[in-house]
């Protein structure tokens, strides 16, 4: 062994010796350096939430939320890159830092919040778990699925809820576990399983992708609460606040009647002090988050308010035609409630 070998070995050991240190604010710094937000979404077939079309364009409720965050942070809703993730790999991708933000229909649970060191910044859809069955099975109630084969996605809360519900009600079943929505739907259509369980919003959207959507029916029972929201890592409180207040701004805009069309006009002309603070006409609320004062104007002119986003992708303006249900404002009997802009 000569000097050259020894020097190379020492250099290699030295490089490995320095551990990577995690510092506060690293997500926002990384985003600003990169110039775009990396958003983890579904593999592109979650109709209404995140879909990829033939031209390579992403659309959906989760996609619009990610674009809103990019608009708030970087001033341009198009400065966002979508990373399609299978559910199994989604949490690991966020933990490792390969995505900044996860908007992937992941249910907010105690274990995920505490053990995985994630934070849900809010809820963009209040959903519940249901079952999709073929009409000609003649099943009208969940109790009639005793002994059935049920398709479910691997590693999700739906898998756990299914086991818990059937155990407490002394019903038997065989799980057919697949890695993706497409595989589950293929299994359901081929008759490999009798029912498919997922969040009801997802079921309504997935049903459209089947060959004969009218041959299938969603059973009335809802067996769990599935609050879906965007997820960030716990090590960047400022990024967490930006993501949270982007979501609140979308809901607040619907509360105040601000739409994509009238946002600039409202920013100029509105006399409502809360609207003035939100849209940056008075005060310096943007600076508290490290954003420009008119960040909310950029966001709303890019994607619209929450109601517009919902109607565009999941409601009357889309093929899914999902009822808003709990996803309406608190003033209309729903659960959407933005904290005051003060």
């Amino acid at each position, binding site marked *: 062994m000569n000097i050259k070998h020894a020097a190379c070995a020492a250099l290699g050991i030295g490089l490995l010796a320095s551990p990577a240190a995690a510092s506060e604010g690293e997500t926002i710094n990384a985003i600003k350096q990169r110039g775009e937000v990396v958003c983890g979404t579904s593999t592109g077939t979650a109709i209404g939430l995140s879909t990829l079309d033939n031209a390579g364009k992403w659309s959906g409720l989760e996609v619009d939320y990610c674009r809103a965050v990019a608009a708030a942070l970087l001033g341009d809703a198009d400065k966002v890159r979508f990373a399609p993730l299978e559910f199994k790999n989604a949490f690991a991708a966020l933990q490792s830092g390969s995505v900044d933000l996860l908007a992937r229909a992941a249910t907010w649970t105690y274990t995920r919040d505490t*053990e995985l*060191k994630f934070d849900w910044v809010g809820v963009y859809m209040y959903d519940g778990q249901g079952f999709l069955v073929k009409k000609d099975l003649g099943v009208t109630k969940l109790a009639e699925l005793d*002994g059935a084969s049920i398709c479910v996605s691997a590693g999700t809360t739906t898998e756990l809820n299914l086991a818990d519900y059937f155990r407490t009600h002394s019903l038997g079943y065989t799980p057919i576990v697949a890695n993706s929505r497409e595989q589950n739907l293929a299994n359901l259509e081929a008759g490999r399983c009798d029912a498919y369980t997922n969040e009801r919003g997802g079921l309504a959207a997935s049903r459209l992708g089947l060959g004969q959507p009218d041959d299938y029916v969603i059973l009335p029972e809802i067996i769990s609460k599935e609050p879906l929201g965007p997820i960030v890592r716990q090590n960047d409180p400022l990024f967490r606040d930006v993501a949270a207040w982007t979501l609140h701004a979308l809901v607040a805009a619907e509360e105040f009647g601000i739409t994509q069309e009238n946002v600039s006009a409202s920013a100029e002309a509105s006399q409502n002090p809360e609207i003035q603070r939100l849209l940056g006409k008075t005060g310096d609320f943007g600076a508290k988050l490290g954003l420009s004062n008119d960040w909310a104007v950029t966001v709303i002119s890019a994607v619209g308010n929450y109601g517009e986003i919902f109607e565009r992708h999941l409601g009357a303006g889309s093929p899914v035609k999902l009822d808003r249900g709990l996803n309406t404002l608190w003033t209309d009997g729903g659960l959407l409630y933005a904290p005051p802009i003060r």
Partner: protein
Amino acid sequence: MLTTAANLMDEGGRAGRSGAPTPRQVRRRRAALLQQLVLLGALAVVAGLIVRNTVINLQARGLASGFDFLWQEAGFNVGFSLIQADASSTYGRIFLVGLLNSLLVAAVAMVAATLLGFLVGLARVSPNVPARLLSKGYVELVRNLPLLLHLLLWQGVILRSLPTVREALGLGGVAFLSNRGLYLPTPAAWSAVPLMLLTGAVAAAVAGLLLARRAHRRQELLSPHVAASIGGLVLALLVVTAAAIEWEVPTLKGFDYRDGVKIMPELAALIAALTLYNAAFVAEIVRAGIQSVGEGQHQAATALGLSPRLIMRLVIVPQAIRVMVPPMANQYAHLIKASALATVVGFPDLVNVFMGTALNQTGRAVEIVVLTAAVYLTLTAAVSVGTNWYARRVKLVER
């Protein structure tokens, strides 16, 4: 000077007066030992730094670590398991379920691939032209498609071409085939009479084998009448046993066939793909082994008047096995690792259930991956040790 062993050992130096190492050789050996120790030390330092780095990073991100999750309740059901497990089982038990499933797949596929590969390999070198062409076509086609493609093809074929469970194909009314599985009858209860008959059949078979061995020792073959009568007796006893047992026939109740045993289509697809793919490689190994035996052996055996079948069985194949053992060990190790592709078809093996679902639910990526890797390392090392032992046993001892 005579070329002695001591001379040959010395690489460049001259042998000492009595064959003892010269001072120069001693110095060179000490230098080599020092270099090896330094290299080992450097590797140990690198490994230690990697571990330290990982632990520091995990703590900095606040991620939980440790193996205590193995005693937590898993909360999900597994679609196929050889031992008792349900949603209240611990993650440790789920690990065992996945491990046993992987072992089952690997064992069945290894045996099937070896048998099929052997037959195809023999066909490759046979004088029969159609057999040669067919086996060549099979090997070339199967080898050049990726294993993933095989798996997806089998899964697609089974899913789409087999009928749904309500319209299952009946096989003699006792077995049923649908895209939800193959349903086979099982014995319901073993009463005294079938047990006695089964013992009788086994005893007759053992007696036949012992007689054959005795004849073999005397360089004779068992007389054809005796062989036929013992074979017939065993077969008759087995048939009567089968008739005497009460069989549990699968019947359609509700959503699926109850009773009997069900073989999942995912399991069938995985085993079929692994078997066919690896059999092609085994066939090539067998062919290479057979062709490596010298032409002289073949000629000498022919001169002795042996028939081609006897030549293959008694002369060629025993010598070919020596050459085949190391590549076969390689193929077995590959098969064990390839069984991890069960994730693609949705069969609940170790990687799918433990490194997929359990990892996602607990978030303990490092521990789970380390455990899974340790399992595969142990399995392939065991195969390696086993084949090394066998290779030493059949090795040519040169004098």
